[in-house]
């Protein structure tokens, strides 16, 4: 008979595997994406998706106890600082003039934009 214990185990097992899958996808994104600006997306996949699912999976595994409270503190803190840190890096990169050399789209459009900018 499906006891609550078994149900919780299955749920946390699924969450943790989903979370580690997302972390894998995020790090594969780091490996595969062409330039810095698209790698920001990969970083936020790890920071938000993977982290939250794994911590939720651990929370279900721990049940209602002090451990879950600690885990939720960690999750809340990382939810707040994860995007903030990624934003800070993106802002610093933009300020430092890191050019967006967009290899994915053809660069002719890019040169036309630059020409227009120079005219104005």
């Amino acid at each position, binding site marked *: 008979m499906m006891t609550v214990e078994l149900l919780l185990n299955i749920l*946390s*097992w699924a969450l*943790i*595997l989903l*979370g*580690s*899958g997302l*972390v*894998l996808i*995020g*790090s*594969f994104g*780091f*490996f595969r994406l062409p*330039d*810095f600006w698209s*790698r*920001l997306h990969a*970083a936020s996949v*790890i*920071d938000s998706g*993977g*982290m939250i699912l*794994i*911590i939720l999976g*651990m929370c279900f*595994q*721990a049940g209602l106890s*002090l*451990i879950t409270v*600690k*885990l939720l*503190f*960690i999750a809340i*803190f*990382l939810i707040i*600082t*994860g995007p*903030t*840190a*990624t934003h*800070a*890096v*993106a802002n*610093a*990169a933009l*300020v*430092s*003039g*890191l*050019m967006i*050399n967009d290899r994915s789209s053809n660069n002719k459009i890019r040169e036309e934009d630059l020409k227009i900018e120079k005219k104005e």
Partner: protein
Amino acid sequence: MFEVCLIVLLICVIILLWRVYIGPTLYDRVIAVNSIGTLAVLIIGVVGFLTERPDFLDIALLYALINFIGTIAVLKFFRYKMVDAGQKLTNEKSGVYDDS
């Protein structure tokens, strides 16, 4: 279950370390190190669960705090003391905000 998660996390850390090694610009390295930090938090949590020691989570929380501060410190350092040597992709404007 936790073993699988631990192995996957360690693989991801290795991929991110590879990105830190070859990252062309400084900022690739900063986000890779930041992501390694959050992965470290998760690894500490999972190891804490594996070894049935709940006090690991305090270490994980502390590590999350320090990781964030470390990332911001590196950015602040490079913003006000612009090191141009390693930034191939940065164009010549990089020093313009050197208002230190």
